[in-house]
């Protein structure tokens, strides 16, 4: 029953019930001999003593209550730990398990499907797309002769000098069967564009012998091209490996001992679209003992740490013209 008092135009509470109860309890404690209130000390130390006294004897937190609260804190902390546990998966590195080669539509930079007939013949601009994993570049080439007319690329047997084994390169695709695609990672020590790139006919000549990096051709490369009677080639400026784009990426000059693996392309003549559907040749990374590559190109699908499957679309980028400087 709260204590009330009449003051002019209304009731005004003086003490709430809880206050009343508190005062009762306080007075009882003060009278209790065990916890007697020391008025002498109170006079000396003032309200400080009073509050300490109240905190200790009346409102203070007793052991049981404190333990209960501790229990809650520990409970919440334990629950937090339980909540963190699934987060520890952040320490487990993701392993990319590409089950196989996806079928990926080649699209241009704005995301529209790339028209096969729009790919320029013998383009000096390095044209790349990632396949089958991100971080694995491949050249996209529309091969032509010296005067820039598309050349039909026929199927050919390719030899791997390192092992002596051979495989069958299926030839070019597209309206003129002139479009081919090879891995852009050099099979010697793994240099990538712009160090390794395609040299169109106008750049296969003695003037390239003195061109600055990455456009330098070696005398051996020129000689090999002459002997093979091809107008253009793929050359790596790192250590001078040369590949024959007309013959399935076969080795023209060392130091490489392996041809460039080819990406299998599928051409849809009704839409003029191109799809990457697989690869043939050695595996992109030589994994076997003594750096002998697997003959099975799907062997190293899971070795790229950062790559993930490119999925159903892959973007073709034509950004760099390596010859623009020379």
């Amino acid at each position, binding site marked *: 029953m709260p204590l009330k008092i009449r003051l002019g135009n209304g009731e005004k509470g003086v003490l709430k019930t809880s206050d009343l109860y508190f005062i009762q309890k306080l007075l009882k404690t003060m009278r209790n001999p065990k916890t007697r209130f020391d008025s002498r000390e109170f006079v000396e130390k003032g309200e400080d003593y009073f509050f300490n006294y109240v905190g200790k004897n009346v409102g203070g937190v007793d052991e049981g209550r404190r333990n209960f609260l501790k229990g809650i804190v520990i409970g919440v902390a334990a629950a937090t730990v339980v909540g963190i546990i*699934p987060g520890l998966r952040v320490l487990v590195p993701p392993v990319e398990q590409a089950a196989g080669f996806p079928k990926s539509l080649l699209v241009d930079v704005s995301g529209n499907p790339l028209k096969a007939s729009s790919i320029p013949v013998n383009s000096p601009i390095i044209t790349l797309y990632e396949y089958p994993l991100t971080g694995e570049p491949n050249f996209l080439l529309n091969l032509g002769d010296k005067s820039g007319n598309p050349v039909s690329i026929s199927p050919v047997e390719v030899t791997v000098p390192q092992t002596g084994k051979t495989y069958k390169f299926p030839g070019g695709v597209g309206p003129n069967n002139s479009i081919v695609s090879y891995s852009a990672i050099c099979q010697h020590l793994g240099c990538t564009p712009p160090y390794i790139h395609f040299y169109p006919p106008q750049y296969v000549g003695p003037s390239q012998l003195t061109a600055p990096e990455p456009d330098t051709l070696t005398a051996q490369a020129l000689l090999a091209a002459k002997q093979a009677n091809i107008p253009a080639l793929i050359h790596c400026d790192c250590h001078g490996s040369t590949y024959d784009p007309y013959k399935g990426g076969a080795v023209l000059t060392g130091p490489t001992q392996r041809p460039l693996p080819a990406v299998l392309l599928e051409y849809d003549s009704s839409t003029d679209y191109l799809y990457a559907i697989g690869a043939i040749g050695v595996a992109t990374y030589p994994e076997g003992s003594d750096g002998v590559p697997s003959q099975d190109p799907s062997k190293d699908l899971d070795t790229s740490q950062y790559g993930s499957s490119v999925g159903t679309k892959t973007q073709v980028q034509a950004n760099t013209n390596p010859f623009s400087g020379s």
Partner: protein
Amino acid sequence: MSLTKRVSNWFSERLGLDDLPFFKTPDYMYHVNEWLGALVAASFIYTVISGLILLLYYNAAAGYQSTETIINQVPYGSVVLYSHLYGAYAMIILAYVHMFRNYFVGAYKKPRELLWILGVLMLVLTLGASFLGYSLIGDALAVSAVDVGAGIITSIPQLSFLIPIIFGNYDTGDYTRVLALHIILVALIGLLFVFHFFLAEHYGMMPSRKVKPKAPAVYTKEEWSKFNPWWPRNFVYMSSLIFMTWGFILAIPNALAYLNGLPQYFNPFMNPKPAPPPNSPAAAHITTYPPWFFLFLYKIADFTSDVVIFLMIGVIIPLVYLIILPFIDRSDELHPLKRKVFTGIGILMITYLIQTSLWGDLAPGVEVSVKDQVIAYLIPAIIVALGLTFIKPVDAQLKPSRGISPLTSLLFMVVAMLFAGSVVELIDYPSLFTFAIAVFTGSLFFIGSKAMGKVVLSKGLPNNAVPEVKTTTETPTSTETKKKFAEVLMSILFVLVVVIVAQMWTIPPTGYASNLFGVDLGLVFLMLGEVISLYHYVVYKKPVEKEE
């Protein structure tokens, strides 16, 4: 003796918890104002831990690509990455708050001069490390920020030898050196932090001005020996602050990761996701900004084309001023209004910093005429000067109610926004979970608004309207009621935490939804911090905590 008691005694004996050389804390200092340094340290620790996790995955030879991999492939990678970014943001903001608070209370004065100088150096290192970290993403923004930074250095020919030292082969996409320097700077911060920390413990926290109105403001050995020892009250209070800081660092960016269409002014700064890579066609369409904590420099660059002047205004003069401050302001006055010149400079520094940063955000790269510069910078100076001339220092005794600190009101704003957000979420996706979150933020909001209301309302009351006697009898009861309320709240929070944790186990580790894990973990940390803070309140809070 119960088993738990024995175990805890065993530990406290072995660890010497009772006589740690740490500063003992008087009761009245359990307010966040005196603990801002702990908040900075908490965000530092968080950022270091998350950074080390990122280091397991980051590949300096493929910066952008491995960042994308961390976000898309690594389980909860985006949670760690985004909160790493915001941990750094939090650290920068809190370091500024910490610094300016100590500036205005005069904490740089004798005997804390070294403490202050170390702190300023740590701020510089923090900004540097953050800039390098920002560059590691390798997106269009980062690359342009590096370009601008390198451009500033190269425009002073004598300094251009620094470019390879700082950036290495950044241009060719090799971030190895930037990564190494990022880590080195952070290690230096850690080293200075150890000194800073032990010096701070040595001198103790600044006593209230009412107790020690003049420098040197330190407690004598006798005075502080009767305060609360580090264990357990300080420990409890500190852990609540640490967990709350971590909670914000985790919850905010991961919640923001769901927003895509932030307005242009905020997008490059608040959106934790990287921008497109610099060589993509999309990069042509974005406005490039430096990281927000360097926006002020970015704008100052529009004032003058002379790099030396630019560096003087933007970096050297403010920095040198801050470092030598303890030696120019040599009076023993601590009250801000008794050292008006320095207070004025401090206010202007804050104003200019914020003003110039906002300007750089809204009008990046737009040149500013000298006339506009004078108008923009003179007016605040005049206002501050006039204001300070006419304000008289108020005697501390006459101000009974503790005003609300700017930090509290800022926090309250955050809470209010979170509450509004959670209500929207609840309406959009009505579920037990969203309801729980809305209730939680709602109760925080409620507590906050009650606290704010008290301050706002009490402003109108005459100071001596409340008779002395009444306060003495009433305070203990109302504290008691609040403690009861706190206990109930603790139980509710416990249930909420369990519900959220159960939900966390169902969140997929990658993809769009994975950021929900970060939001949840942040909320759990917040609630853990809140529970500990309530525990602190119930168990340790005295009815009256006098400034002694």
